[in-house]
Each structure stands twice: as structure tokens, then as C-alpha cells.
């Protein structure tokens, strides 16, 4: 008898226990593969839905899909069984095995599918899945701050600031590392046009010349926020004060003119179009205006929560308020902004970005929520979970930049995807 024949014979008379053992292994593997196989489907569905400007999401219930796959596996396994001989035991007929296999496969598939459906409904209870096309690059661990100006994208973390080119190919070239070794960076402001950086840290505010060169101390003291204008002015927050400085000045003994807001300032955003400076404290949003070498108060609005980040687009201002969600204001009159929207669908709004038509909400482990900022009939356009643990988002024209702490990575998506 040849080896082949031996092998063939052995296969034919393989005991049923072994066959069942194999069948169990196949079943186990198949059940493990169920979510993977099915994961392909929602991604495709998601992509279709986003390309169609997020219409109502149509998803095949996984309890049905998995049950069907389980039933199919049952059919397959029972067919394998039917090919074998030596059928012993209580339920040993092919018909019985087929019924049990299909029944078990369907039931297990149904249970797994039901879990998947539950998870899906919890994940996307506020918005349907979105899968925007993205370009991604890795960033250093524990990124904390994202800042974008017309020419550069800056990501700050414990090891300094990585500066990427904001051009479309920017993420394909390695970043330039700036502010190396600066510990506990709380904010970064990129000066429009020049690309110079203002880096706020517990040790003070440091200014970095465009492209390369070490930083110079502008202002001692724990700086918590920074903003920069295109004309060389830098605005910074130290404790409860908001101050203005010229980037060209590096005399740290200078007494900086500014304004005391009475509460710790956590966010500063400069609106060049209207020469307005928006400041957020642990309870209030302030509209300030740089006048001469100082700053004056234009208006203020109680937020009822700590202001984490502010985004400005035209005459509208969006505010991320952590567990209190996001508020959107029409600040045509900065002295008396009018609320247009208060949305608290996210567990925690880490950051917010605003374009003429869309409001992006960085929602941490939930992902990135996309809201309709143009007053359409459907407020929440969807949720992009694939973007990771989103802690920062910035919109700049056609591009929106997303900072993912889990990756850790920086994603670029189209603002109007």
C-alpha cells in the first residue's frame, strides 16, 4: 500500500470523535470569524452612506446576518459529518445532526449578532456611522494639543511640538520637531503666514522663530493659553490674566498689558477678521478686543461649565464644554452672542471645530461627531469612530485635522466629506 493510499485510508476511517473535534474547531473558528466577516459589511455601508451626505443609515441587523451565517456553518458541518462513516451515539443520523448543527449555529449566531446589534446601537445612539476617507500619520505618544494655521499643523505632547506641513502632501513628509524637551505644553499658537510658534507651558510662554531655531522666553509664569495674530502680536493667558505682547519682544522682564478676568483662563482664540479675542474660563466665555497695546472687554456670557476649546468661523462661535456638550452662538454682535445650538449628545466634548456647514465635535473615546451647522433638518450627521480617541479637531478650509490620542495619530479628512 502506498503512502497516499495509507493516508487516504486513514482519512476515510478517521474516528467520529476526531471528526467532531475538527468540526468543533471549525465551528469555533467560524464563530470567531463571524464579527470579522461582518465587519467588512458595515464599513462598506458606512462609506456608501457618507458619500451620500449621510442619508438614513441602513444596516443589516447582525442578529439576522450572524444567525444566517451560523445556519450556513451548521449546514456545512453537517455535510462534512454526512460524508464520514462510523456514526454512533444518540443523535447519529444525518438528519438529526443536520438539525442540531443548523439549530446550534443559528442560535449561537443569533446571540452573537444580538450582542453586535446592541453594541452598534449604543455606539451610534446619537449618530449614524461615518467613515470619512482619511490620511493618517503617527505622532509621538500622549499628544495633547493641536493647532493649525494656514501653513502648518502643530501637534504638541510631552516631548515637544511636531510641525507638519498643512499642504495636501504634508502628512507624507516627516514632521519638524520643535520645542523639544518643553514639559507640560498647555497650548500652541501658530502665527499665520510666518509659521512662528508660541508655546505655552507651566514655565512660561516661549516663542519659536519660523522653521527652525530655539525658543525664547517671552513671559515667565504658568501660561495656560495662547493665540497669535498675523501682525506679530501674541496673546497669552497667565492665571486669570489675558495679556498681549509683540512677538519681536523677548524681554521677559517686561510688564505685559492686559486684562484680569477674575477666573482661570483656559482658552484663547483670535479672530483676525474682526480683531476679536475669545477667551474661555472655567465658567464664562469672554469677547475681548485688542486695542493699542492692551485688551478691552467687549462682552461675556456664562457657560455653566468650563470652556475647553473655542472655534470661530465668520460671525459664529462654537464652544466645547466637556460634559456639558457644545454650544454654538451667532456672535454677530460680540457683546451679546445669540445661542443657536446647545448639543450634549456626546459624553464629553473635548474640542470643537467649525466650518460654514459643519460642526465637528471631538468626543474622546466615542470618536468624532459631525453636526450640521447650516440649520438642516438633521442635526447630527453621524459619528466617525474609526478616528480613535479624538481629543483635538481643527478645520482649516477644505481640510479638517483630527488628533487621536489612542493611535496616537493625526488624521486629515475632508471638511465636506
Amino acid at each position: 500500500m502506498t503512502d497516499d493510499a495509507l493516508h487516504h485510508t486513514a482519512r476515510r476511517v478517521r474516528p467520529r470523535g476526531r471528526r467532531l473535534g475538527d468540526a468543533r474547531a471549525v465551528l469555533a473558528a467560524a464563530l470567531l470569524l463571524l464579527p470579522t466577516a461582518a465587519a467588512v459589511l458595515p464599513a462598506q455601508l458606512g462609506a456608501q452612506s457618507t458619500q451620500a451626505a449621510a442619508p438614513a443609515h441602513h444596516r443589516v441587523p447582525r442578529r439576522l446576518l450572524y444567525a444566517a451565517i451560523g445556519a450556513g456553518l451548521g449546514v456545512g458541518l453537517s455535510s462534512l459529518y454526512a460524508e464520514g462513516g462510523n456514526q454512533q451515539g444518540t443523535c447519529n443520523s444525518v438528519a438529526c445532526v443536520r438539525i442540531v448543527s443548523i439549530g446550534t449555529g443559528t442560535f449561537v449566531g443569533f446571540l452573537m449578532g444580538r450582542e453586535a446589534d446592541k453594541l452598534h446601537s449604543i455606539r451610534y445612539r446619537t449618530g449614524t456611522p461615518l467613515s470619512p476617507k482619511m490620511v493618517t500619520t503617527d505622532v509621538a505618544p500622549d499628544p495633547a494639543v493641536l493647532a493649525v494655521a494656514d501653513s502648518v499643523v502643530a501637534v504638541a505632547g510631552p516631548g515637544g511640538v511636531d510641525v507638519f506641513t498643512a499642504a495636501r502632501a504634508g502628512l507624507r513628509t516627516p514632521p519638524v520637531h520643535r520645542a523639544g524637551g518643553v514639559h507640560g505644553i498647555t497650548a500652541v499658537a501658530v502665527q499665520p503666514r510666518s509659521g512662528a510658534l508660541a508655546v505655552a507651558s507651566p514655565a512660561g510662554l516661549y516663542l519659536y522663530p519660523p522653521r527652525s531655531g530655539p525658543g525664547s522666553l517671552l513671559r515667565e509664569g504658568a501660561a495656560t493659553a495662547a493665540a497669535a495674530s498675523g501682525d506679530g502680536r501674541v496673546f497669552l493667558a497667565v492665571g486669570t490674566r489675558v495679556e498681549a505682547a509683540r512677538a519681536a519682544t523677548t524681554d521677559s522682564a517686561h510688564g505685559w498689558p492686559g486684562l484680569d478676568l477674575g477666573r482661570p483662563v483656559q482658552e484663547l482664540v483670535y479672530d483676525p477678521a474682526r480683531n476679536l479675542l475669545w477667551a474661555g474660563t472655567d465658567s464664562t466665555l469672554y469677547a475681548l478686543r485688542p486695542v493699542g497695546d492692551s485688551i478691552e472687554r467687549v462682552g461675556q456670557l456664562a457657560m455653566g461649565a468650563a470652556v475647553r476649546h473655542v472655534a470661530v468661523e465668520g460671525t459664529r462661535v462654537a464652544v466645547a464644554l466637556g460634559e456639558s456638550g457644545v454650544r454654538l452662538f451667532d456672535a454677530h454682535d460680540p457683546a451679546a452672542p445669540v445661542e443657536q445650538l446647545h448639543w450634549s449628545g456626546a459624553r464629553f466634548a473635548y474640542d470643537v471645530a467649525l466650518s460654514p456647514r459643519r460642526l465637528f465635535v471631538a468626543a474622546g473615546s466615542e470618536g468624532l461627531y459631525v453636526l450640521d451647522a447650516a440649520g438642516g433638518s438633521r442635526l447630527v450627521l453621524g459619528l466617525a469612530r474609526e478616528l480613535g480617541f479624538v481629543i483635538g479637531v481643527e478645520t482649516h478650509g477644505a481640510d479638517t485635522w483630527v488628533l487621536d490620542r489612542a493611535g496616537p495619530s493625526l488624521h486629515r479628512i475632508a471638511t465636506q466629506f
Partner: protein
Amino acid sequence: MTAAVLPLLLLAGVTTAARPAAGQGTARRPGDARTSSADSLVELALTRARAGDTTLALWTLERATKIAPDYAPAFYQRGLLLSRTTSLGLSDSWRRHQAAKEIDHALDLDPNNPFYLLELGRIRLKTPLLRLEAERMFHKALAAAESRHDPRALADIRFEIAEIYGRRYESMANRRLLSGTQEAFDPTAALADPHYTKQVLLELSQPLPDAGELDYRQAEDYYRAALLADPAHEPAALGLLNLLSEARRYEEMERTARAFLAAQPGSARGHLALGLALHRLDRDAPAQADFDTALALLPADEVRDMTALSSILDEERAATYDRSGDAARSQVDSAYWDAVDPLRLTPGNEAHTEFLARVAYADLRFSSAEFGHQGWRTDRGQIYIRYGEPTKVATFAPDPDNAGGGESFGRVTTVWWYDPSNLYFVFAGPPAMNVATFAGDFRRYAANARYHAPVLFDDVAKRLRLDTVAVQIARFRPETPGTAGAEVVVYADVPTGRMLRDVDINQAPLETGIFISDTSRHLVLAARDSAVVRPRGGDRVATRTWARTLAPGEYVYRVEAHESVSGSSARGLGPLPVTSFPSDSLSMSDLLVARHIAPRSAGLTPRNRRDYFIAPNPAFRFAGGDTLFLYWEEYGLARDAAGNGKVRVQLTLRLNEVTRAGDLLTRVIGGVADAVGLSAKGDDRVALRFDRTVALTSENRTPNYLAIDLGHAPPGTYTVELMVTDLVAGRSARRQRPIRLVSQ
């Protein structure tokens, strides 16, 4: 259940129980004398239960049920008390059965009372075969509470449901699937092969995506819903905070803790959790403030145990520590934390804050009300307190073949691995119970690890980027005659090059300080100053010098440097013994090893070290071709007939450990004139000897220095020894220093 935990549970039980009793008017008929008297008995029983007399409390409640057989709260309270005095398992089945019977009776009298249904669910939770049924019962209770709009009941029930999901999540979190032929993680193999754990975690297993996410999210929803109903619900708040901490959602954790503390400012554990969140957000100062608040709010006994050093001492010292009284412990605590404080220049003690954060985490994460476990006492809690957050955490499904034997049957294996120490610990516990103990022989492994490293604060050193300050201490006789002790001069090389390497700023503020304390830890010298330095990288150092006359005694010195922009730090510390110099016989100062020494004035006879330019070498490190400079002072030389002193100086350079072989050839090229030109050659040891006559002043202090060309001495570690013999009095004194020669 331990004796210590039982009264706590009882108290928790009767407190919870007391609240619904007041609101259970549905089955109570005002004005009914029997009901009133039963009500009084219930109150009395609760008082007795709080005092710890469960038997009498049960008897009193039984009387109440007999007096008013249609008074539901009496049956409920009796069932509750019976239930709370049982623990999970089959051992208390009969008592639980009795408890369920009483509560069923209460439910007959007051159908759909959410509290009664809740307690039935809790009883099911304690019954191994009925745990799954508990969830259904809680949902029934929830529906009842919703229909009654009772926020207190809603909070309690939602919390219990959240706990079920939370425990399931903990079992599934960090789940990995083994690849290859392995079916389960093998603790025995992990013990036998030190590479096994690392290899399994990094190469032979894959994380299971989204494992436990559904349970996580459901738990979060229910905890939040519980807090919505009752913002001051501490168990729900702690459950939610634990979930947020597990997912590293520290910003959210901080906000949640603050919101909870606004509703419940006196919650010690709320402050502990807030401190933990702030610590993880790198805000140590406010974190420490919250830890302090928490410790002030907790019962003194609990604080004593929770913060005891015995967790982080080796077993022998821990036993001694545990036996000591409060005063002695307090002294040890203080001395310990003082010694391990990484930097005195910074306002807090980073190591202590880290320790409290670990305790807070262990308490939050591993506590189990169900089992009466305090998290920081558990196996996992103790390991966490000693070694901090593991580099990798993994859980593995129970072994389908039960290869580990009966003990591991159906248990989830949890593996913690630490890098770079390669310490690893394996725990096993039943699924969905948030309980795990050392697997296999890992208790012994942990004891062994504890012997070698009772605690590690690697994470603190890493966070502070802690470098080493090279320190050379030289003790000289005080200049004022009759002064006891010594003038101690501390020379330090602050490694500014390494500290500011890659720090991208023009100028950096560098703070330096010296702290010398005596055996009672009283500071006898504390000096701080700051300078602005330019980061240039390399091995550049900033040499600092401090001098102070100290009385005889034992001291400890610390020299520290801190750069606030990068957070880089460096320190040098060690013992500093000080003795007096004899006034009537020969003695000598320490040998001062320097990079360069030159007299300040060629015309003047030097009287002490201030008459020299001295560039000390605190690192005792020289490169090939360098010149070794030595300075020392002789005191109390006897006068000969002419009033002069006569000394013999013998210098020995001994090679202790060679990096690369070569001949040892030295030559004196400067310093004491009598010695210049002397040379010596050898394989591993050279000695130079010369005699000299010195004119003695009234102070009887003779300064000396030598410049020695080390030639092409091979790199290695050496000992320089200098022996001075008073040829008039026949006495000798010697001093030595280690030096290191490195390749250029």
C-alpha cells in the same frame, strides 16, 4: 467574611434599609396601633443592628412581624438583615433562603416595591446558580422604581445593574487570544521560564478587538443613570470613575469627580478618585491636596492601614513596622518619605504622591463590596502599590482543558508584565466577579520579588527625568581655633549638558540646592539658588560649591538641580559623617581631587585652600592624558628643634579594575616643590614618596597640592591613597579617593 468587614456591611445594609422603611407607607396604616408598635420595634432592631447585635435585632424584627403580620417593612428588614449577614457561596444557602422568604412575604404585602425586588436581586447575586437571574430581578425592580418615580430606588437599582455589566467588562477587558498551539496561558511555565510571559504577550497572542466594550458602555450608561437619579450616590460615582480611569479618560474622570463632590463634598473616596485623575493628568500639586482631604475624611484606623509602609517594605521590616506603636510608625513614615523624596527643590514629594495615587487606584479598581474586599488589601492591589501600573495587562480565557487542575477551573487568567524589570504576576479569578488572587505559585514569586525590590518608583524617576549630580565632599579643619567639627565643602557637578540635551530653548532657568540634615532629619543647611543657563548638550557640567562648618555628628546631604522648562532634574545624595580634628596631634583633611589647581599668587606662601585656584572634579573622572590634581591640608605637625615640621608624604595609585591593559607610569609635574619630577612605574600599582620640611605658623595648617601626569595609564578604576607621616612625632594619617580613568 472577615470580622472587620461584617459590621461595615451591616451598617451599610441597615442604613440602606432605614431609608426605604420611612417611605414604605404603602403597606402602613397610620393610626393602627399594631403597626405603630411594629414600627417602633423595627427602629429598635435597626439600632441594635447598628450596634452589632444582629441576633437581638433579628429577634426584635421577628417580634415586629408577629405583632403586625401585615406590616411589610418588618418582613423586609428581617430579610435584609438575614441577607446582609450572608456571603456569596453555598455555605449560607439556608439563611439566604430564609431572607428571600421574608422579602417575598413583604412583596406579597407590598407588591412591586422596588426596594424589596432589589434586595431579592441581591440575594440572587449571592447565590452561585442564580447570579444570572439577579439581572432579571434588578430589571424588574427598575421597572417598579420607574413607575413609582422614586429617585433613591432608581439610583440603587441602576447601580446594581451597572455593577453587573462592570464586572463582566473587567473580566473581558484586555482580553488576548493565544496564537499557535497554546490553548491557555500557563502560570507554571511563566514561573519556570522568565521569558515566557514577555514572549506570550508580545509575540504569541493578539488583542481581541472591542472585547468587553458592550459591557463597558452598558455599565457606563447605568452608572450615569444612577447619578442622574441621585447625584450623591457614592457607589455609582465610584463605579463610573473606575470605568473612566480604566479607559484613561482622565479629563472626564476629573469632571465627573468634581460633579460628584459638588453633591457629596464629604466623600473621602470621591476625593481619592479626583486626586488620582489629577495625578494622571500630571497635576501633582492639586492631586496631593485632594489626597490629603480624602485622608482627613477617612476613619483614622483605615488611613493607618491604607497608608501603612508595610505594603512597600520587605517582609521583615514590614513585620517590625506593623508591631510598632503609632508614634514610632509616624517617625518611620516621616523618615521614609523624606528619604525617598526625589527632589526637595520641588514643592511636593513626588514619590509620596505616586504612592497615594497607587493606593487610590487599588482602592477604586479592586474593591468589592460584594466580597467585602478593600482593593488595596487584595493581591492585585498590593502588587499595584509596590510596582505601579504594569507595562502590559492581559486577560486570557479559562483553559478549556483545565490543564492547571481544579483550582484554575473556569477562571480568567490576568497577567501583568513590567518593563524593563521583567517582573510579572499572574492572577486567576472567577469571571464577572472582580476578584482574583495569585495563580499557581505566584504568591511565592511575589514574595521573592518583594524581597529583592519591595517597591519601585521607576515611573517617578522617568517623569522627573532624574539624572545624577556628581558630588565630592571635602572636610577641612575649621579656621576658628577651638571650633569642634569640620568645615565641610561640597563640590557638585550639575550635568546641565545631559539635563538640557534636546531642550530647544535659548536659555533655561536652572535651580540648584543643597540640603544637609542631621539624624533627626532637621535641616542644618538648606540653600537654593537659580541661574539661567544655555542648553548646549554634551557632557557639559555646571560646578557648584557650598561650604559650611558642621558640628561633629552624622548627616545626610542632598544636592539637587531642577530645570523647570523641561522638568529635568538631577540629584546626588549620601551620608556625611563629621568628626573633629585633634588639636594636639597630626591629622589631615580629605583629599580634594581636582581638574586643576594653581596658587593665586606666586609671591605669597599659601595658608589654606583659599589661596589656590581650585577646579574640583566631583565626578573623580579623568580622561587619558589628563593631569590629576590633589589638594590636602596637614594639621598639628610637631615642631622640631628649629620650630619646623618634617613630613614624609607617600602617594600610591592602585589600579582596582582595568578596562584595557597597559603600563602605569606617573610623574609629578607640579605642586609641592620637593615632589616635582618624581616618577614611578608599575603594572597595577605605583608609589611616590618624598620628605619635606615645612615652616609652621601658629595655626599649624599646611596646605599642599600635587599635579600628577597620569601618562598613558590604562582606563579603569583606581584608588589614590596619600599617607602623611610626621617624622618628628612619628604619627601617620592617611586619606584615599577613588578615581576613574576613561578613554578619550
